[in-house]
């Protein structure tokens, strides 16, 4: 029917171009992500142990999943991970919003402040972990030294050993590292905010809080969801922090799902079981991302910016 199709090889045709352009990306991800994930899905149904290669063909059905779901330590790590994410993301959002509003107020040196804000974002998580391992060290850490010098504490506070304090320290490091994602994006949202609705609301008699609540906040929510989506892509970076700060210890008190996977898979070389856990963590990540992504799409709609 199409007379232009004659004599033109299929790969030169317009409708194939995007697929050709995308093929390197698709192939890379198939080879490095999809294929390995299929392999690990298979492995999660075997009793594969690194030290016994032949066990790769040892099909055990759902036994790995039954094991981990009946394992108390798994559920504790799982619950701790959810709690960790909930606290971290909420605190990061609230702090980020506060910081964005603060910097938005300031007119002098705003650009410099914004640049400084971005530093933690660029830090390697392993560095953030190291930095706070150093600071929270009970013996030579600057925090305990300072507290003792100021006379606020006479003993060495075991920041990284005590069950609650260690979790707090890790959360602190995580929040220190990631709050800027929220702050930067929310600030971008505030900058993009049109003046008219603000002025209209003031004319309509809204006070400062009402303006914020009904005009500013709804407008910047899509930006918050972008930040949430970006964050949910790399929440598992917390693994690096925990690994360097406490290694999941002491005695599993700061074990998150991701450190548990590493321990079961590499240290105990139970690959089958570790892969089963890994699938739980993947589902968790996808769920988080999907949730925020749909929120983002919904928020975009009433903002009217999208096609």
């Amino acid at each position, binding site marked *: 029917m*199409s*007379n*232009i199709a004659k004599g033109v090889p299929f790969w030169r045709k317009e409708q194939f171009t995007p697929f050709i352009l995308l093929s390197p990306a698709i192939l890379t991800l198939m080879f490095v992500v999809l294929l390995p994930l299929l392999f690990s899905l298979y492995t999660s149904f075997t009793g594969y142990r690194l030290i016994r290669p032949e066990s790769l063909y040892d099909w055990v059905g759902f036994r790995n999943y039954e094991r981990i779901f009946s394992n108390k330590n798994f559920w504790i790590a799982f619950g701790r991970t959810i709690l960790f994410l909930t606290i971290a993301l909420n605190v990061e959002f609230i702090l980020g919003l506060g910081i964005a509003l603060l910097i938005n107020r300031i007119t002098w040196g705003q650009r410099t402040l914004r640049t400084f804000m971005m530093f933690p974002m660029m830090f390697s998580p392993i560095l953030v972990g190291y930095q706070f391992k150093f600071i929270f060290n009970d013996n030579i850490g600057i925090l305990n030294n300072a507290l003792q010098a100021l006379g606020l504490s006479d003993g060495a506070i075991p920041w990284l050993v005590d069950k609650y304090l260690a979790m707090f320290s890790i959360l602190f490091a995580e929040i220190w590292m990631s709050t800027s994602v929220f702050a930067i994006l929310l600030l971008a949202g505030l900058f993009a905010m049109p003046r008219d609705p603000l002025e209209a609301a003031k004319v309509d008699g809204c006070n400062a809080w009402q303006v914020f609540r009904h005009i500013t906040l709804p407008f910047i929510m899509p930006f918050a969801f972008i930040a949430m989506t970006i964050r949910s892509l790399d929440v598992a970076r917390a693994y690096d922090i925990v690994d360097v700060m406490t290694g999941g210890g002491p005695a599993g008190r700061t074990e998150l799902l991701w450190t548990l996977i590493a321990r079961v898979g590499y240290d105990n070389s139970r690959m089958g079981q570790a892969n089963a856990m890994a699938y739980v963590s993947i589902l968790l990540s996808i769920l988080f991302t999907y949730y925020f992504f749909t929120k983002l799409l919904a928020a975009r709609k009433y903002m009217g910016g999208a096609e």
Partner: protein
Amino acid sequence: MAEIALHNVVKNYGKLEVVHGINLNIEHNEFVVLVGPSGCGKSTTLRMIAGLEEISDGTISIGSEIVNELPPRKRNISMVFQNYALYPHMSVRDNLGFGLKIAKQAPDVIEERVREAADVLGLGDLMDRTPAELSGGQRQRVAMGRAIVRNPQAFLFDEPLSNLDAKLRVQMRTEIKKLHQKVKTTVVYVTHDQVEAMTLADRIVVMKDGYIEQVGSPMEVFNHPVNTFVASFIGSPPMNLIPGAIDGDNIRFSDGAHISVPTRLKDKVRNGQEIIFGFRPDDLTPVGHGINESGQQAPMKLVITLAELLGTETILYTQIAGQEILGKMFDPRDIHPGEELNMNLSLDKAHLFDGATGKSVRLD
């Protein structure tokens, strides 16, 4: 300099057909305007001529050559885009010379041709600026300069004035007309603004829903619209259209009111035929305030609901057969809402369209 011919040209996106086999011959140095509401396929047609959209079926030729499979660069055309598409990282000079540079012309040739184009459009002082430093009108001129510098076979304009404010639009409209008179070339110009179409075109092509409705000179299209769509689309304010039926020598409207069938169209209609009666506001005027006061007239008394003063004329809002109707008053005096006026409807200029098809009965 070349003619452009479209033969049964079809465009579809997957299953969706947006241009349905159109035929059009554009002559040497002719200024043709494609006009229609948005989504009528006019831009798609232009982009197929440019080679920016594949042609799904049919043929397009420029000069004597079928260009269906030629990429844009081999068609020897130039195009002015709606938002100008000036290259933001290049100066005005480089923007103008870009096409020649790509064609590997010698630097002194480029220099000379760029200067000529700049002279024609009065861009001399702006040559070292970047597009960001230009006003809307200046950008428009650079875009046109970029089009003429290569001395192409045809210019294509895609709604070039729609981003300008009203005053500048009128000014640039004149400049485009002058440019065409200076640089004789075939022009295909797309717009949704019928005023632009009327003022610029040698021939107007009215499009709707992927079909060509009518092709003709501005006067033809204005005076002899082939159907109700063209009648209502061309002309501002639009033509009044009232549905009715032929009843002997009269047209009877839904509320029982009637009016004589224009004598020149009498043998084109049959008794009982459902028709749409159309006339332009210019032809419904208060007695003594019209321009066509001789010939067959239909006198009537009408109550004015609203009067819009334009200075040399006043637009009158009234009602016929329960429908809002616009008339005009030339050489106006003050009119008060609610005032009843003796008015004349010039039937010599009135139109009749078939009620079912919307086609002008004149064509039967």
